[in-house]
Each structure stands twice: as C-alpha cells, then as structure tokens.
C-alpha cells in the first residue's frame, strides 16, 4: 500500500509537471471526442500519467488477490488526483503563474473539467475510478488486455492525425465523403471512434486467437501457388506506388519524392556501409555535388554555364559524383572504423563550407546558391509539380535498386562483404582492397549524385544550406532502421524515417523529440532493423543469445588500427 501511495504521488507529480510546462495545454486544442463527453488529448495525457502509475502498482501487487490490485490502483489514482488537486487549490492562491506562465485559469478548468475549486472531490473520485479501472485492467489476461490497449491506441492515433487525414481525404471528391463520415470539424465523430475501437479490438483478438493457425495453413500451400502469393505483395505495392500521386495529391507526392531521394542516397550509402562496411558520415557531399553539377549545367540564371537539358546534365552529374567519390576515397583508404566516420564527416563539412565560401562564390553563388534551374521536360511535357517528379524519382530509384541488387551477389559484392567481415583476411586472400574500396565509394557517390540531380530540379535552386550533416546522419539512420545491408530495408527505412517526421509535423515542435525517442526505442527493441538482411538477423540473434556479451566485446579489439595502405 505504501508503494501505491508513493507511485501515485509520483505520477501525480508527473501530471503536474506536464501541466506546468504547457504540454497539456498545447495538446488541449486537439479533441479526442466531442460527444458524449468532451475529451481532449491534453486531458488524455494527464490521465495517462496517472493510469500508467496505477497499472504499474497493480502489476506489482499481482501476487495478491484481484481485489488488492484494484484497491492498489484506486489508491494510486486517488493520490495522483490529490497532487493535481493541490495544484488547483494552491495555484491561484500562491500566484504560481508568476513563475509558470502556463499555470493559467484555462489549465485549472481543464483539470477540474470546468468545475472550479469545488470540483476537487469530483477529481478525486474520477482519478480513483480511473486507477481502479487500471488496476482491474492490469489483472486481465493478456488476451483481453492487449486488444483493448490497441483499440484505445487506435482511437488516439485517429485523433492525433485527424488534421492530416482530413487534409488528405478532403483533396479528393469521393474521399471527402469518407472524411465527413470520420471527422467533425474538430474531432473524430463518436461513431467513427467507436467503429475504429471495436474493429481494432476485434481484429487484434482474432489475430491473437487465429494468427498461429493462419500462419501454419499458409505453409501447406503448394510452392507454385505460394510463389504467386509472394509476388502478389510487391506487385500490389508497385501498383499502389504508381497510383499514389493521383490519389494523394500534391502533399503526399512531395513527401514521396523526398522519400525517393532518401532511398537513392540510402542505396548508395548501403553499398559503402552495408556491403563494404565503410562507415561514411560525409555522404551528403556527393548529394551536393550531384545537385550543384546539374544546377551549373542547366541553370538559365547568371551562374549557369551550359544551359543544358536535365537529361543531358544528369549523366554528367553522376560521373562527377563518381569521380568525387573516388577522389575523396583515396586519402581515407587506410582509415578504419569510427575514425573513418569522423574523417568522412570532416570531408562532408569541408565540401559544404567550401561551397559556402567567398572563394568559390563567383562560380557557385555562396550562400545565395544557384537559381533558375528549369524543370525537366519529358516528351514535350514540363515536369513541374511533385506529382510528375514522383515518377522520375520512382523510375531512377527502381533503376538504382536494380543495379544495387545485381551488385549484391556479384563478384564485387562478395569482395565487399569479405572486406566488411575482416579486412586483413580479405587482403590475405588476394582481394585488391584499394580498387574494391574505391569502387564502393565511387558507386555509392554516383547513386547519391542521381538523388542530388533530381533534388536540384525539384527545388529549382541549390543552396549550401540544404546539405547539412543532418542529412548524412539521417541517411545512415535510415539504412540501419531499415536493416543494414538489406535493399528492401532501405526503402522501408526511407519511408519510416522521412515519412514519419513529415507526418509528425502535427506535433510541431515535438517533432524531433518523438523522432529521436523512436530511434532509441527502435534500437532497443529491434536493432536488426525493420526488414533485415538474412545474415544480419542471424548475427544479432547470436548476439542476443550469447551468454557473455561483455567477453565478446572485450575480445574484439578496437578497430582503430594503424594504416595498412594508401
């Protein structure tokens, strides 16, 4: 019981903290439900702070009877409510507002559900009931608890993304009907919330009950049919991808073009990091080189030198990027591991600073950049909007992915993997380290160059500011989140890491907060990536199962060694 009290006070304090720093009020603008009760996301955040505490307490009291769990939950809830009540009672009297700008009357109203200081008993009762419910929920069997939690999460997601969903759905005439069914102007409709909740619960429960059987049954399908089935997924994905811009409109197309550009860069970096094990943090330099080459060659502005068409400039950009990759690869040939990451990071920054410098301003425009880059023309049609550029990006991503896929199992691909596994052994077996590494740098850079070229025409201008280190880091993160060395993983990773912050624009300033937290959680829960390559998965499994990870880590010497070549 003392536990319950302590946890309750703690979660109450968390709730007060959330309220005082303004998170709750910020979220209050978004309604989860307007009817039958008016419930905002801010209130949900407050309740969640209390619920999580009550849940934890009830779990810990699991040894006792169900009644004890409910009681513990209720006690935790009441004590959390008491802390909040204290804020409401003491707030106006002590003039907390002088210190915490957010401790405003609307905040107190929100906590007391509009009842003022007289609402304190009601708060205590409500929080006690919530705590008791959480306690009871904690004692439910997992088969019932999980679907319910998923259902609640689905309703929350529906309300968090309502603005975005409305934006997308209202774009089309037919989809607008769906939007009206799902949302009122400021919240999901009660019907929609109920349907989403019930459907999620039902699907989840069904999957829980039947999932294993379903999986077993697919294994009995004859191989030929299974192959067809396996092709059906990708085929559907391709069709969906082709239709997306038409359905999704300009916003979605724009996001997808950016996803495509990151896919191109990810495929390139994957050659270096995933295949050859060369950790490169200056990768954005090659993206920049591709963009600037196209900019210089095609711009009709004062700095343009050739006024070429995009299609003529593109191969030049690829070759320039490739040469740059090889040239920058030469000095770092002998550098390994983390040192390589830092050296390449230095190169990336040097390239950006040079482009920005006064020294090159007469040619590259300094911080003003290159302007007036015309849109590409294809078959007499000027590819203006993101809907058009999406197809360009898709086509080149497909081409580059095909090249990467063919490289993976080629002689060169195997040489790269040998270097990744052990550079010294590979060299002893007759691998030419210099040419293999330079090819990895060059080809990876060429892929990024394609992306840069499209980026230049997408914006119609090129600025040094677009090529921050953050891009290199994002690309590295996306290939690891997707699954290092895995080609489908690159696409999945690009979708997740680029699409996600775009979707999270809803959170405004919370955006990179959520993004960063998700990166950490991802590494903790699924380090092998969303779509891992086969051997990567095996390695990580072994690591998990290894009895003495510390011993292993100690046995592996730091990779920073003496230079072996170059």
């Amino acid at each position, binding site marked *: 019981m003392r536990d319950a009290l302590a946890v309750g006070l703690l979660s109450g304090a968390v709730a007060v903290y959330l309220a005082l720093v303004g998170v709750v009020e910020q979220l209050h603008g978004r309604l989860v439900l307007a009817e039958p009760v008016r419930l905002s996301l801010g209130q949900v955040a407050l309740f969640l702070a209390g619920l999580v505490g009550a849940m934890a307490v009830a779990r810990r009291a699991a040894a006792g009877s169900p009644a004890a769990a409910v009681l513990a939950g209720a006690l935790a809830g009441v004590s959390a409510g008491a802390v909040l009540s204290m804020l409401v009672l003491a707030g106006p009297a002590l003039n907390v507002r002088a210190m915490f700008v957010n401790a405003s009357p609307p905040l107190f109203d929100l906590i007391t559900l509009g009842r003022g200081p007289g609402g304190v008993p009601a708060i205590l009762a409500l929080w006690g009931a919530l705590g008791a419910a959480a306690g009871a929920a904690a004692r439910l069997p997992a088969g019932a608890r999980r679907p319910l939690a998923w259902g609640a999460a689905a309703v929350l997601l529906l309300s968090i993304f309502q603005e975005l969903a409305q934006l997308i759905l209202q774009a089309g005439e037919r989809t607008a009907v769906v939007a009206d069914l799902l949302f009122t102007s400021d919240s999901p409709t009660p019907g929609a919330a109920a349907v989403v909740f019930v459907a999620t619960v039902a699907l989840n429960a069904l999957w829980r009950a039947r999932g294993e059987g379903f999986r077993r049954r697919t294994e009995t399908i004859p191989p030929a049919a299974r192959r067809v089935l396996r092709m059906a997924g990708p085929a559907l994905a391709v069709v969906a991808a082709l239709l997306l811009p038409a359905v999704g409109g300009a916003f979605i197309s724009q996001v997808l073009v950016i996803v495509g550009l990151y896919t191109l860069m990810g495929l390139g970096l994957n050659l270096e990091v995933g295949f050859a094990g060369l950790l490169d943090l200056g990768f954005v330099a090659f993206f920049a080189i591709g963009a600037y080459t196209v900019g210089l060659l095609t711009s009709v502005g004062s700095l343009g030198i050739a006024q070429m068409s995009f299609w003529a400039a593109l191969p030049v950009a690829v070759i320039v990027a490739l040469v740059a990759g090889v040239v920058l690869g030469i000095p770092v040939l002998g550098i390994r591991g*983390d*040192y390589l990451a830092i050296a390449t990071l230095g190169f990336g920054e040097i390239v950006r600073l040079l482009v920005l410098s006064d020294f090159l301003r007469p040619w590259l425009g300094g911080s003003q950049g290159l302007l007036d880059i015309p849109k590409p023309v294809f078959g007499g049609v000027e590819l203006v909007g993101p809907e058009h550029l999406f197809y360009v990006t898709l086509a080149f991503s497909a081409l580059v992915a095909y090249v990467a896929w063919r490289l993976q199992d080629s002689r060169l691909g195997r040489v790269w993997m040998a270097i990744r596994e052990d550079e010294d052994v590979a060299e002893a077996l007759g691998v030419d380290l210099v040419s293999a590494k330079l090819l990895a740098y060059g080809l990876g850079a060429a892929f990024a160059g394609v992306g840069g070229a499209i980026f230049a025409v997408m914006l119609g201008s090129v600025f040094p500011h677009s090529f921050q280190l953050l891009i290199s880091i994002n690309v590295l993160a996306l290939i690891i989140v997707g699954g290092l060395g895995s080609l489908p993983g690159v696409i999945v990773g690009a979708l997740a890491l680029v699409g996600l912050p775009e979707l999270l624009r809803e959170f405004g300033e919370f955006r990179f907060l959520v993004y*960063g937290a998700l990166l950490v959680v991802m590494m903790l829960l699924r380090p092998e990536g969303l779509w891992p390559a086969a051997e990567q998965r095996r390695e990580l499994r072994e690591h998990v199962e290894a009895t003495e990870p*510390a011993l292993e880590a100690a046995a592996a010497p730091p990779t920073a060694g*003496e*230079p072996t070549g170059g």
Partner: protein
Amino acid sequence: MEWDVLIAIFPSVVVDGLVLGFVYAMIALGYTMVYGVLQMINFAHSEIFVTGAFVGAEILLIMQAGGTLGALHPLALLAVIVLVAMLVSAVLAVAVERIAYRPLRGAPRLIPLISAIGVSFFLQDAIRLVESLWRNAFYLTYPVVEFFDLRIAIAGDIDVPIKSILVVVASLLMLVVLTLFVNRTRLGTAIRAVAEDQAAAGLMGINVGRMISLTFLIGGAMGGAAGALFGVQFGTINPYTGFIPGIKAFTAAVLGGIGNVPGAMVGGLVLGMLETLAASYMSLLTGGAFGAEYKDIFAFSVLILILMFRPRGLLGEVVREKL
C-alpha cells in the same frame, strides 16, 4: 606594418585560444573517457554540454528576475552555476547511458551509435520545447554580470576580460582534479582497468557496470561545466549550439589520441589555439584571400591529416595506458 598588427594582437589571440582550447578540452574528456571504456562515439555528449549551458543561463536569469543577481559575489555566482550545471549534466549523462546505451551492450557498434544520435535529437528538441514553453524563446542570452566583463591588463596595453581568465582558471582546476582522481584513487584505477580490459576487470571484482556509469558521470560533469563556462564566455546559446563545439571537441580527442585523458586536454588546447590563430591571422597572411570563415575548414583538414598520418593521435604512443 602588417607585422606590427600581428604582434600587437598576439597576446589577446593567445588568451582567446586558451579559452577555446580549455572548453574543447573539457568536452573532449567526455568523448574520450566514454570511448575509452565502451569504444563508442557518444553523439549525445554535445547535448549534455548544451544542457549545462542552459542550466547556467536559467540560474542567472531566474536570479536576475528575482533581483538577487547582485547579492552573491560574482565568483560565488560562477561557482554556483558551474556546480549545478555539472550536477544536472552528470545525472543526465548517467540516465542516458542507463536508458539508451546499457541495454545495447554487446550489439554491433553501429547500433549504439544510432541510439546516441536518437538521444541527441531527443535532447535538442526537449530543451527547445521546455524553453519555448517556459520562456517563449529558445535562444537564451546570459545576463550581464559586470564583473565578468571588466578588463584587466595582462601585458603592456593588452587587456582581456576577467571572464576569460576565470574560464581558464576554472577549467585548469577541474582538469587537475580529474587527472588526480583518475591516476591516484582506487575508483580511477578501476575505471582505467575497465577501459583496459572489461572482462578481466570484471573477474578482478570490479563492478564494470558501475564503473561505466561513473565514467558517464564524470564525462557529463565535465561537459556540463564546459557548457556553463561556454555560456559565460560567449553569451548566447540555443539548443543546437552544441553541435560545432561537440565535433571540434571530438576532433580534439582524436588529435590527442582517443581514449587518452591527458591527450584530450592537449588535443583541446592545440586545436583551440590553432583555430584561433587561423581565424585571426589567415586573412592577414594570405592578403585577404582566406578569411576567418575558413577556420572550420582548417580544423577539419587538421583532423583528416591527423587521421591519415597519425591515427593514434599526438600522445597515443608516448602514453601507453589507455583511458
């Protein structure tokens, strides 16, 4: 005539270089110690540093709002902000290790690297979020404490602000204490043992996990102190301030030989000095062709050259012990 200018500004350039160098050195310690025990680049360390800078600013701003800024002696004021910043940053660094790095012990090395990048994003925007909700602005300026800006003569008619002297003295003090701690105490020996060989240290009865936490604690404290001193010296901070000093400090750690405590200090001082000299003299020496904005290019070029030709760093071979 130009030579006269060069010589005339030299003493104050040296002081500026020392200030920057000591700040780099203190941040570099966090990188180098963590690298020593975990062989991992702690990408979130620049945010630990920034947290210290924000803690310092908040204390001063709150005192200013309360009208108590003049009540304390400026030296006591400096001590308070540095100590509190150290405390907060140290606790934060230990928490980050617990939550985001410890569960990944034994995973391939890229995994904790990405986790650290995630933490870095998270902390940047967490600071920004809290500050913009709390003050409605996330660019903070340190309140003016007149004493810090008083100028004292150091040579002839050259004078420098007191705060520069204070930053140098305070960092020097902390670096000396840290060196003594690492080399003369049992705990310091234990940390060095863990850096040398985790498994063997564990077999000798050293609590490896706790020593790693302690490493983060010390590195975080140093980073926090550097943050507060940085704020006092340079005035304006924002949640993204840490990036460039962080990269430079890592460069300094590599320059001195990563994993090597005296190396980080030497590396920081050398880099700070080189950078300041480059910023002050490059334009004069090249007849205006290359100005101060090339100092970062210069710093990164030094980094790449060191990595190419002397990857063990300046002190990497002289001092064999690792940490």
